[in-house]
């Protein structure tokens, strides 16, 4: 059994074996092609192509109305696609009713049967398979142990806490050993204190069972900490697919940059672009943005530039002696938000727009060295500048 380290080992720099999406030879487990679903005039899911590999914990991240839930419901079989194919392990699922699919779902509301005990709830799916009583009992006991609910098998759902219900729902969907487990906002109904512990446990269970998980969430933190890869969805389309670090550090659009975490976004014109980097001139005020990565747009084109607040430095302007240069902005502090572990400065620029800069509180300071209305200079290294195509 692999050690239950939680989500920590995931992220950039993994080997080929653990990141099959980097291997062109790898065969995807779940393959979506041209998947489309319309509700009247509204296209909820628009022509989605997506490959998901065996053993992944894949997160569909998006706001309400982004189409993530419709996509999940199509995988479960509750919605029929208007076009496109769903292939799981070589098997075409699109025309299969939900009760024949080797796919199980953990519902957001858990959907536990109120008239059945915990054991009956978990055994329900096995009973439908026509398994014998003793085998069902053994599998249910195994599932209860997996989710650490031993001894609660005779309880009814209403006599359980929210966290326990979530575990029963998880056990009920896992006990059939599905090829694909779908999780609809798995932590959405839990309170904050339970959520973090459950995040780690869910990842742990996913690693122990080796089941491929696809979860839908609107919570970017949940997606970032748990998932092997994230698909950010908006308007029924995939805005970007990648590992949490890729999507956070290398967003390809303004939407993704601002949906995941905080990003300062500037508009500009590309002045120079080559393999070594790019230089972008701001169209709003006198400033230059320098990037050390290959920009997606040709020279002269209008682009957007994103910079994360934690990659910026803030200094009082009086201490500033360096000459004017790229990746440097001047302004005055308008707001300060103290979060404990970091301080967020909101700096007003000459054109009235604002830049957010965060600064970790490495020492125990009670009085901040920079305060309201101070003239400040904001700088950042060129690797922090991300040039966005859209």
């Amino acid at each position: 059994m692999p050690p239950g380290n939680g989500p920590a080992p995931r992220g950039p720099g993994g080997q080929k074996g653990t990141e099959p999406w980097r291997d062109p030879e790898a065969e995807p487990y779940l393959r979506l092609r041209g998947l489309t679903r319309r509700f009247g005039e509204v296209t909820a899911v628009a022509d989605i192509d997506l490959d998901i590999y065996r053993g992944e914990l894949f997160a569909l991240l998006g706001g309400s109305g982004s189409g993530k839930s419709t996509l999940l419901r199509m995988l479960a079989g509750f919605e029929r696609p208007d076009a496109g194919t769903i292939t799981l392990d070589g098997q075409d699922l699109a025309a299969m009713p939900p009760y024949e699919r080797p796919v199980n779902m953990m519902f957001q509301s858990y959907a536990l049967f109120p008239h059945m005990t915990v054991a009956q709830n978990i055994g329900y799916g096995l009973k439908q398979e026509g398994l014998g009583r003793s085998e069902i009992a053994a599998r249910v006991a195994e599932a209860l142990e997996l989710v650490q609910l031993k001894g609660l098998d005779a309880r009814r759902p209403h006599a359980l806490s929210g966290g326990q219900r979530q575990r029963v729902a998880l056990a009920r969907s896992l006990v059939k050993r599905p090829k694909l487990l779908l999780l609809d906002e798995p932590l959405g109904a839990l309170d904050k204190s339970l959520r973090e512990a459950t995040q780690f446990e869910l990842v742990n269970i996913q690693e122990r069972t080796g089941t491929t998980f696809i979860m839908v969430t609107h919570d970017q933190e949940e997606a970032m900490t748990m998932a092997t890869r994230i698909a950010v969805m908006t308007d029924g389309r995939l805005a970007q697919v990648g590992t949490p670090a890729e999507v956070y550090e290398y967003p390809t659009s303004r939407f993704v940059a601002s949906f995941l975490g905080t990003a300062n976004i500037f508009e500009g014109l590309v002045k120079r672009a080559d393999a070594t980097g790019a230089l972008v001139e701001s169209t709003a005020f006198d400033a230059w943005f320098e990037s050390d990565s290959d920009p997606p747009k040709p020279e002269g084109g209008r682009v957007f530039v994103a910079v994360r607040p934690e990659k910026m430095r803030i200094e009082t302007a009086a201490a500033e002696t360096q000459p004017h240069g790229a990746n440097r902005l001047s302004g005055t502090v308008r707001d300060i938000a103290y979060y404990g572990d970091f301080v967020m400065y909101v700096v007003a620029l000459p054109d009235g727009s604002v830049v957010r800069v965060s600064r970790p509180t490495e020492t125990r300071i009670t009085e901040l060295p920079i305060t309201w209305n101070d003239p400040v200079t904001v700088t950042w290294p060129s690797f922090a500048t991300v040039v966005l195509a859209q």
Partner: protein
Amino acid sequence: MNGGGGASIASGRLARLVVLALPYLWLLLFFLLPFLIVAKIALSEIAVGIPPYAPILRWTEENVLTVVLNFGSFATLLEDGFYLDAYLRSLRVAGISALLCLLVGYPMAYAIARAPEHRRNLLLLLVVLPFWTSFLLRVMAWIGILQDQGVLNALLLSLGLISEPLRLLYTEGAVYVGIVYCYLPFMVLPLYATLAKLDPVLLEAAADLGARPFRAFLTVTLPLSMPGILAGCMLVFIPAVGEFVIPELLGGPAAQLAGRVLWVEFFQNRDWPMASALAVALLVLLVVPIAAFQRHAARRGRA
């Protein structure tokens, strides 16, 4: 401060007491008191006069107040097979009627509960609509449909399905038609209430776990609509046991049901003590299923 709080608590208690006392007062005045009067008549002797029974409290010639209880009516009730037969038949007819109402009402309630939300009120209105006309008129209308020269026979004859009119009216079948028709809304409404509350996501969960639609219905929908089934059956069964008008108008002379027997004792034989004894027996007969239902409901409420 303290006194004010105490006063408000006291007045709150008073208000609660009043609210709790009202239904009990109602039951006392309109249920227990009439029942005691009926029980008193049941235990008195038949007499010629107005009212047609002897008082149970009497002054003897020695001026002693005596209570004269006459259990004769109850004895007759138990000894004469006629009454027992009528009661058993009533229970059977009511039971079968409740079952038929359930078979007809369940699909209706299910369809209404699954209909688009904006159409549900209209469908419910259609279920209740017959109540807007007189009950008697509706039962009479069935005579027109079921009689030998009635609408149904005429239709069957013209279609060539039968060569001579079927005997439909004045049969037990006609009684069932009448009862099911008249009491159907009492079955549909509680069933609809429980089915509408049923979370459709539970059926999705059942399908997701491998249950075909019919299995999902048997294992999820049906058990979860049990409170509605029980309430509907009680609402049909209880009034149907004592039903007088429908068997009188649609049933044959052989169909001696409890309600009819009671009516005959009261108005034709003018035997008030016997009629009252029948009424008391009917009540006792009905209290058993009601109590069972209440126990079940209470257990469900706790669960």
